[in-house]
């Protein structure tokens, strides 16, 4: 494994305990220049994870709590009349930061949701006729609460597609739980966390991800997986071509994390559920993650 990334991962696991796999996936997501959706109950460390990711790379961080009365301007920014110069001046919103935590994104109105999601996709904000580029890197971590259904606006499938991965953290293990209770507050630890690698190096890694080799045999495997999702009985819709590309990029990032020069089938398998499950339209009472696992087991590696 790449030593710098190893160091990053080590620093992260010092904060978020016992969740190495999720940390890796989150890191891969960031390296693949994708956005992350975390679906989990409150208090399992979603914010901590987002903050930790921002800290280890020395990125600036904003948290937006989504509520039903949140307006697009609250996220994107607003132009205010500046009396001394007699002009409108744009005050950038929280989206103009390198890491944005969109907490409980499903609580906001669809209009606000789509404002953020558009910004995520375009990596720029257009307001009052002016287009403003968002920072690079730009990484959105959105969370949603699966339990509550009242007063929420679930993200439609088309919007879910904007997230490269969907993860859930889950409760900590016994050991991690104990450590959490004994050790100092995570927030305090975070404050002391020095950046492990800088923005420049992060961008370099993001660039390297794209050049990780996908051999013809691997492309065959990707295609076989995609075809399997489209032909699966329990799925109404399979993976789109964009999803296929996302799968490839995520696998490339995973391979880079593993320190490989090319993607191997295991890399694809490692990211498949995280990348594919939230994009599959399942029939009633089916579990997309279980189906994705089934597909992984059933599709022969060519």
């Amino acid at each position: 494994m790449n030593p710098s990334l190893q160091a990053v991962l080590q620093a992260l696991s010092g904060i978020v305990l016992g969740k190495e796999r999720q940390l890796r996936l989150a890191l891969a997501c960031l390296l693949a220049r994708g956005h992350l959706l975390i679906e989990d109950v409150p208090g399992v460390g979603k914010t901590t994870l987002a903050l930790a990711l921002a800290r280890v790379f020395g990125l600036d961080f904003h948290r937006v709590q989504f509520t039903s009365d949140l307006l697009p301007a609250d996220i994107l920014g607003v132009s205010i009349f500046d009396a001394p110069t007699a002009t409108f001046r744009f005050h950038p919103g929280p989206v103009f930061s390198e890491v944005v935590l969109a907490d409980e994104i499903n609580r906001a109105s669809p209009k606000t949701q789509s404002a953020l999601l558009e910004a995520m996709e375009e990596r720029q904000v257009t307001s009052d006729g002016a287009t403003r580029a968002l920072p690079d890197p730009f990484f959105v971590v959105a969370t949603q609460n699966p339990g509550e259904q009242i007063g929420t606006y679930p993200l439609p499938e088309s919007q879910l597609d904007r997230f490269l991965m969907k993860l859930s953290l889950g409760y900590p293990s016994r050991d991690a739980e104990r450590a959490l209770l004994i050790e100092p507050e995570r927030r305090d630890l975070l404050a002391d966390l020095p950046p492990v690698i800088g923005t420049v190096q992060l961008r370099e890694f993001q660039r390297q991800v794209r050049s990780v080799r996908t051999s013809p045999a691997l492309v065959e495997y990707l295609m076989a997986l995609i075809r399997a999702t489209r032909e699966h009985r329990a799925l109404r819709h399979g993976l789109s071509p964009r999803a296929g590309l996302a799968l490839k990029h995520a696998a490339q990032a995973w391979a880079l994390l593993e320190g490989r020069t090319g993607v191997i089938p295991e890399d694809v398998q490692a990211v498949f559920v995280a990348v594919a499950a939230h994009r599959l339209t399942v029939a009633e009472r089916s579990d997309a993650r279980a189906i994705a696992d089934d597909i992984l087991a059933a599709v022969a590696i060519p």
Partner: protein
Amino acid sequence: MIRKSPRPVVDLLPRVAMLRLLAVLTIVLTPHLPRLPIWAAALVVVLIGWRAAAALNGWRMLSGAVRVVLTFSAFAGIYASFGRVSGQTAGVALITVMAALKLTELRARRDTMVMVFLMYFLLITHFLFSQEIWTAAYLLVCATLITGVLIDANHPGGGLALRPVLNLAGGMVLRALPLMLLIFVLFPRIPGPIWGLPADSGAARSGLSDSMAPGEISSLIQSGETAFRVRFDDTVPAPNARYWRGPVFSRFDGRKWDPGFRPSEDGVPSAELSGPVIRYEVVLEPNRARWLFALDLPSRFGLPQDAELNGDYQLVLSQGEVRERRLYRLQSQVQYRLQPAMSARQREWLTRLPRTSNPRTAALARSWRAQGLGDDAIVREALRRYREQTFYYTLQPPALGRDSVDEFLFDTRRGFCEHYASSFAVLMRAAGIPARIVTGYQGGEKSTVGDYWIVRQSDAHAWTEVWIEGRGWLRIDPTAAVAPERIERGIGEALASDDLPAFLNPALRSGLRFDLRARWDWLNAQWNYWVLGYGPELQQAVLSKLGLVDWRRMIIALTVLLSAALGVLGLLLLRRAAPVNREDEALKLWRRLQARLARAGLRQAPGEGPIDFAARVARIRPDLATTIREAAARYLAARYLQPPNDAADPSADRTARQALSAAIARVKP
């Protein structure tokens, strides 16, 4: 009644493919069209046109009943036109028409295949009619086109771009050429021509005939066709010795000479040959004659197997006639003494003349005899008469009546070689000297390109042989007395220029066209010699040069070379089919390992990656842990990871392959 409507043209073939097929079929069939009865040619053209229009406009196909009626009528029509349905012309006509009728049911790929093989077969039939270089070139082009159709038909969908298909087809035809040559050279030849089908075409060929009347040879002179080509081994005889002996005529009916019925006791007369031996090879054009031409006078040794010398020392075929171009070798010597002794019966036969014809000639000869001149003196006297009186050597002699010799000798005095030879022989016979006419060719033209001589129909000639006691037959050429340049320098020099056929006109015998003609003749000569003349004799000669002296060795060589060629071809194909890149090769090796582990009960699951599989194997069989991990790592490196920078270096690639192969071999479950 259920009425079945004809099936619409739902062409299962792409329109482009269909039109191309029709175009190629047209090209293949066109040379046959003039050989067909007019109705059949029209039917073929209409069917091709109809099918093209049907493909373009989506017309309906003909119903089955119409097709059956058409087919049977065409069959009956061929039978009515030829009186049979087999044989060269009738058979080809039948298959041509049937190929065109096949178009009425041509819809799917299956039919295309049938058409392709029909076209290949039709292509071969062209050789039954012509074996010229042009034909061969045309056939190669057609073979490429048909192969193109075949390639297109083998692609699902079809209608490929024209150029790559033709490139591939051309490449395939080119690659087939060495095999073709090999088979051509080595395939055992049986005596007889390659394309010896019963020829029912009855094509008349120009050439000397088996009788001679005034005007026959002079009409032959008008032809620029090649009679035969000669290649001398070393000695080339002088121009005035190049008499090519053909039909010999001993009976005269007052106007016409023919061989007559030779007295039965005649064997082959004795001949003493002397002087340098001239060895040569003749490529004779087909002339439908029963004789071959030989330089005066051929040796009786080393004759072609099917030829013999007759009583007139003429080289005749023991059976059959020269229907095909044929190659034969002979040896001759120009000094000879032929038949020094002769029976009284023969002398009587060879001095016989029709009693009442040509009285003035007979009187002249008798007057010489009355003067007491001997045989030699009479010959000299007669020649002197030709030389000193005003005789004209011309291609346009006036017409002669019943006593043709009298009229020629005393009145017109304008004639061609046959007039001179005929009148001289009659004079000799009237004087009691045995005489006969020999026809053949005289002279020949050296090719300006190759090392051979061309003897044309225009070199046709007639001369006389007289028999003198003790000296045997002497060749006397009265034409030489009148027009010596004919013998020394050829026909083109001997005739007045307005008398000459155009191809002999000296004004036209230089420059580019003449040069091209010479080169074309040379090319044809090579073709005739090496391709068409490649029969058992030449094959033996070629093969013995290669050290393959007998049939057994030849067949062994053929078998070995053919198997070698097919083996090389097979290897090339295998190489192409086998994995060519390192990734597929890695997979092959990995599959081998999978199979080995599966026999030990360790089966890689379909969705199980190599690393996961290696880890599982390592858990179950710790003894394999190191080796399987290494094998998996090498396999992944070869199949998935970035190739090392020196991947272009084949030796590095080979090393990696060997390492993987070794790593996989080390896993011993």
